[in-house]
C-alpha cells in the first residue's frame, strides 16, 4: 500500500500536467484536488480517494 505522501507526489504530477487542475492538498485519508472542472481527474490516486473542489483559477490580487 502506498503512503499518502507518495500519492501526493503523484498528484503533483497531475497538477503540472493538467491545465484544469489548479491546486492539490491532502488529509490523512485522501487527496484533495482543486480544479476548474472534473475532466481527466482520477477518482483515486495510488489507492487513496480523491476529493475534487471546484474553483476558478488562483490569481494574484
Amino acid at each position, binding site marked *: 500500500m502506498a503512503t499518502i505522501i507518495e500519492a501526493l507526489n503523484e498528484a*503533483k504530477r497531475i497538477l503540472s500536467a493538467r491545465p484544469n*487542475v489548479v491546486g*492539490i492538498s491532502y488529509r490523512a485519508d485522501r487527496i484533495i484536488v*482543486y480544479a476548474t472542472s472534473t475532466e481527466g481527474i482520477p477518482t483515486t490516486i495510488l489507492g487513496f480517494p480523491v476529493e475534487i473542489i471546484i*474553483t476558478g483559477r488562483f490569481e*494574484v*490580487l
Partner: protein
Amino acid sequence: MPIPKELRKKLEEDPSITGISDPVEERKIRIYVESEEDAKRVLMEMPEIKIAGVSYKVEPIVSGRFYALSRVRPLVGGISVGNYRITAGTLGMIVRDKKTKQPLILSNNHVLTQIMLGVEGEIGDYVVQPGPYDGGKVPEDVVGRLLRFVSIKLPPETNLVDAAVASVEVDFKELEVRGIGRVNGIGVAKEGDKVYKFGRTTGLTSSTIMDQFATIKVYGYYSPDTYAIFEDQLITSTPLMLGGDSGSIIVNERREVVGLGFAGSDRFSCANKIQHVVELLDIEIPKGAIVMGEPILAITALSSIISTLISK
C-alpha cells in the same frame, strides 16, 4: 431623492453608522453599519423611515468602517501601498529586520517590486503610499525603498512565499494594523481556525482556514497567463481578499499573525505561512502588548460586501 436631514444627522452623530444610501425604488433605505450588533440595534430603533410621506424599510448592511484610500501617516498595516510603477496593494504591517532591528514595510513581492510588469525591478525602487492607482506619486508620497524580496520562480521550480520588504522613511506604528490593532507575534494556522485581515480594498473581513498544506498554481506573475507554483499554502473557506488586498497580513483570534495574503480565486483566498515569510526575509514579528478584552472590530463577510457592490 435626497437623504432627509434627520437621517444625515444620525450619520454624523452615531459612530456605528458608516453610511446611508439614497432611498431605492423598492421602498428601502440602506444603512451601513460597523457590526452585526449595530445592525440589530439600528433595525430595532428604526425599522422604517418616512420621507415625504412615503414609508421606507430600513435595510442595515454590515460594512465595517470605511477608510479613504489616501495618504496615511504614520504608516500602519492595512493601507494602500505599492512600487511606484505598479497599481496598488496593501501594506501588511511594519516589522523589524531580525539582525539590524531596522523597521521595514512588509508586503508581497508583487506589490513592492515591478514583477507585474515583467521584471522584479531593482533594490532601491521607490515605494509609495498610497499606491500609484490611489494617487501615490514620486517624490511626494515616497515612504521607503525596496530592500529585499524573495524572487518568484516559474515551473518546474516552486515557491513558498510572495514576499518583500522595504525600508521606512516616514513615521510609522510598528506591528499595528487597521481594524485589528497591535498584533501578537506569530502563530500556526490550523484547519478550522477563524482568521481576519484588513486590506486596502475590502477592509476588515474574516474567514476560516480550510487547508493548511495546499500546493497551488497562481496566475499573473511576469504576465497574466504565466503561473507560479506555491507549496505549503493556507487556503480560506471563503474569499477573504479582492484585488488590491494583496500584502494583507492574516491573523487568528489571538491576533497572532499566521499568514501573508497574496492570491485568490472566485471561491477562496490564499496566504503564505508567516513562518516561511519570517525565515526567508529574515524579519521578526515579536509578541506585542495586547490590551485584554479589546475586541477585533466587528467583522463583515466579504460576500456581503461583494453582493452589496453588485446590487449598486
